[in-house]
């Protein structure tokens, strides 16, 4: 007698598609107006598109601060403003070396600028290579 193969009701599908997450946010009227204005300015149709872009921007900012880089805006005149966001500062590495001001002579600055602006740096010396490889003198 043939055995009837019945499909199991609760068997999972062969390939499970990840479900999109849903977000709900309670915004104050002022924040909601700001959100609408930004969406309009950026020509974003949905809150989803807005959130995707905002997350991308935040991810970039976090990666920059985590690498120890500052986020700076600069005008054509060279005026600079540094973005300081307490939440971002939590991921910034501790800068352990204090900064000191040192005196320079004109000839020191001229030599430094000449060396630093050279297209190619001097090749490493044998002693430097040995030092970097941890080899004896």
């Amino acid at each position, binding site marked *: 007698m043939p055995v009837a193969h019945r499909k199991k009701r609760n068997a999972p599908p062969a390939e499970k598609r990840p479900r999109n997450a849903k977000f709900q946010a309670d915004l104050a009227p002022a924040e909601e107006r700001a959100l609408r204005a930004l969406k309009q300015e950026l020509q974003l149709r949905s809150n989803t598109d807005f959130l995707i872009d905002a997350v991308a921007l935040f991810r970039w900012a976090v990666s920059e601060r985590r690498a120890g880089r500052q986020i700076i805006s600069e005008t054509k005149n060279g005026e600079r403003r540094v973005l300081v966001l307490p939440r971002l500062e939590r991921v910034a590495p501790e800068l352990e*070396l*204090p900064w000191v001001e040192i005196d320079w002579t004109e000839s020191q600055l*001229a*030599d430094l600028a000449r060396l630093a602006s050279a297209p190619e*740096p001097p090749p490493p010396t044998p002693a430097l290579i040995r030092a970097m490889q941890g080899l004896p003198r």
Partner: protein
Amino acid sequence: MIVRRLEEHDETAAFDCGDIPLNDFLKRHAWVNQEKISIGVTYVAVDELASRHIFGYFTLAAASAPYSTFPAKYVRGLPRYDLPLLLLARLAVDKSHAGRGIGQALVSEVFRIGLQVAEVVGCRGIITDAYRDRVGWYGKYGFQPIGEASEKIPQRMFLDLRTLRKTAL
């Protein structure tokens, strides 16, 4: 031997490199400068087994050279910002441990930290003010004299971080 940050109970009093200002700095100022007023970090070479006895030390700080004062003919190849530098403020080896490669071990650590600083916050080179009789020693590692040469004042020297990177590849 290991190289690590100076700690409060390290035996600085016995250190003698033959140079009174360098001895005095380690004994009187290094700890305060590092922990209290934060103007320099000192690293010491110590024995792993007798880890308070100091063989040698160096002190580092971050510094910069102002872009606005660079001669116009050299600024083309430079970014329009002050040049970030690592200042090797002091380096000394105890007389009783001279000739054992401790100077090289210390300067190797300076180079390693230089590469790390460049990676984390940006650094274009290492500078130091070398005593006249030590210019050749620093030159051996690729430091180049910058500015005027004078018998009366230390010689400022510069090592390009790009050169260091080439050795690290």
